[in-house]
């Protein structure tokens, strides 16, 4: 076990590697979440705990229900059944914007950059609790001017970190695919989340950029943000995740450290052995 791991990483690595196992300090606890489309059971997760302060990866063959699961947790889709607690707070009855306000922020597989707004405006939108966002204060510039300056300073700093400073006044639509992924991640960080859900952050990104994206994801963890992400590329997952959850046909079939999962026969049968080859071409 490497010596430079933080306490949370060490804690999760000692957790029981069976589906639904308890974690030492869970940030997210999921119970009986299910969703079906027509006759197809897209998601059916009995129990899942996500450790705070580490990078957790969701993997699984195409159609395993990973993105649907994300959509349910952030209420971009409605579950048929289920409950989930975030930071001890019950979230299942809440709407997507309240979930984001609670500190659980997501990105999308197909990036949603706000094309006809500047990169800077995209960033500033991410900040929470802005006074000027309420209708009546909006008309009184004095009431939000100082906050606006603070938000802008923070956005400038984050843009610098994500190598987007030179684009700050450009329309977001003019960014390249990789830059959009960076922007979306940076924008999500503007909201100071406790948990960030990244839906395939490396998909469709120029391979040269993948490494820098990975560095950013690791940097998030080192700052204390918990990361949950979906990824296809097995090598990427093995390299940076602290814990891996394997989904197939909507169920959690295995969890464990990268080493444990890569040696798990169930995983090899369900995922690596069969569908992985077909899976490569997907965006």
């Amino acid at each position, binding site marked *: 076990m490497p010596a430079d791991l933080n306490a949370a990483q060490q804690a999760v690595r000692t957790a029981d590697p069976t589906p639904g196992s308890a974690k030492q300090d869970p940030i997210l606890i999921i119970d009986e979440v299910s969703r079906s489309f*027509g006759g197809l059971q897209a998601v059916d997760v009995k129990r899942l705990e996500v450790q705070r302060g580490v990078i957790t990866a969701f993997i699984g063959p195409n159609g395993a229900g990973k993105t649907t699961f994300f*959509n349910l947790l952030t209420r*971009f*889709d*409605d579950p048929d059944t289920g409950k989930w607690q975030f930071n001890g707070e019950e979230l299942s009855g809440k*709407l997507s914007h309240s979930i984001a306000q609670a500190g659980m922020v997501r990105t999308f597989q197909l990036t949603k950059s706000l094309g006809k707004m500047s990169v800077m405006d995209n960033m500033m939108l991410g900040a929470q609790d802005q006074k000027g966002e309420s209708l009546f204060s909006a008309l009184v510039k004095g009431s939000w001017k100082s906050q606006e300056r603070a938000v802008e300073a923070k956005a400038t700093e984050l843009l610098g970190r994500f190598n987007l400073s030179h684009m700050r006044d450009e329309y977001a639509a003019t960014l390249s695919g990789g830059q959009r992924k960076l922007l979306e991640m940076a924008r999500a960080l503007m909201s100071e989340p406790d948990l960030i859900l990244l839906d395939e952050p490396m998909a469709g990104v120029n391979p040269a950029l993948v490494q820098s994206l990975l560095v950013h994801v690791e940097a998030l963890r080192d700052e204390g943000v918990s990361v949950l992400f979906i990824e296809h590329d097995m090598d990427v997952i093995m390299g940076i995740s602290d814990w891996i959850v394997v989904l197939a046909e909507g169920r959690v079939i295995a969890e464990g450290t990268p080493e444990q999962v890569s040696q798990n026969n169930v995983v090899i049968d369900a995922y690596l052995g069969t569908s992985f080859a077909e899976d490569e071409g997907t965006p």
Partner: protein
Amino acid sequence: MAVVRAAGATLLLVLAASLLAVFATAAPAEAQDGALKGTLRLGRDVVPDVVITATDASGSEVGTATTDADGKWEIPFSETGTYQVTIDTSTLPEGVGFEEGRSETVEIVADEVRAKAVGFKLASADVSTTIEIDPLWQRLLSRAVDGIKVGLLIALASVGLSLIYGVTGLVNFAHSEMVAFGALMAFAFESLWGGLPFWIIIVLAALAGGVLGFVLEGGIFRPLRKRKMNNISLMIVSIGLAFVMRYTLLILFGSDPKSYEHHRVQKAIDFGPFSLPGKDYWIMGVSLLMLIAVGLLLQRTKLGTAMRAVADNPPLSQSSGINVDRTIMAVWIAGSLLASVGGAFLGLTQVVEWQMGEKVLLLIFAAVTLGGLGTAYGAMVGGLAIGFASEFSTFWLDNDLKFLIALIVLIFILLYKPQGILGVRERFG
């Protein structure tokens, strides 16, 4: 959110209930200003339940009235001018027409704003016929049959709108103009070649509708899609197109309400408890057959499968060898053809005029939303339901207010089942 929704629903319920209460209970007040009025008589008998429409010189409708149990009717007007007062011949009792040299339209010059008497000269084909007011159940039944008839026609007109939305994502605001186009084409073909059997006229009108669908898709919407215009912009283009079509029809055909020569006066044919003019059986039978044919087309043919596949997932169907452009074209042609037939038939039951499209627009949109935007079967069911509900409601409500029913249905569907009764559950907002 649930609270907002409940509050919204309550608000709506209260509004709907109070509107209905106002309209259903308040007695019509006496006219204070000008009115066109009269008593419709046939010999010594009065004729109830006949729809009379007045239009002004510019062709816009001034008002509509239905003769009451005493044959009396009244349409208010507020300005001096020349008015055309027209009887909707389809609402006349069977076997009743006009005296030699008289027609269903009377021109009135109102030089002052006051009551003007308007007389029509009705004649009966069978002089011994006496008009009786039917018992309640029979009038309800006849409304119900009318409702089914209108419902079938609205269904015909709606299918295309829903299918076009399904395969392209475009809400085509010009679709309802196809209805007016079909009716006026039938009228034009009949005036050109009056000797032809009427079913050939209907077929010609249908073909004209198909050709127009071809031209609109091939000449306007396909090139614009290729320019990558988004559907919102295309929808606005379709709004502009609707105005161009509507007012072109006005310039070409004028504003006066028309009716076909054929089937103006028909003897009723008894069928069980029903007693309907022969044309009504035809309208209902043919419409139903056409709807069934659409169903078979979608389920049983290669083209139908392609249509459903494109509606489901255009890129995927493209990559699996379906010619998306050709499928969309087929949908446009079929949809426009159906709407034209609906319009041509609608012209048999109402007046034929340039505003027909505008008048059914609301019903068609309510039907398509009720059934589920993008589903063909939904549009059929929705059309039947909306057509029936709005027509049947005229038993209690004023003729104009049948649109209120459509709106209330529309809003309730949006609140409680936005995917429509036959749509697939989809994630909204």
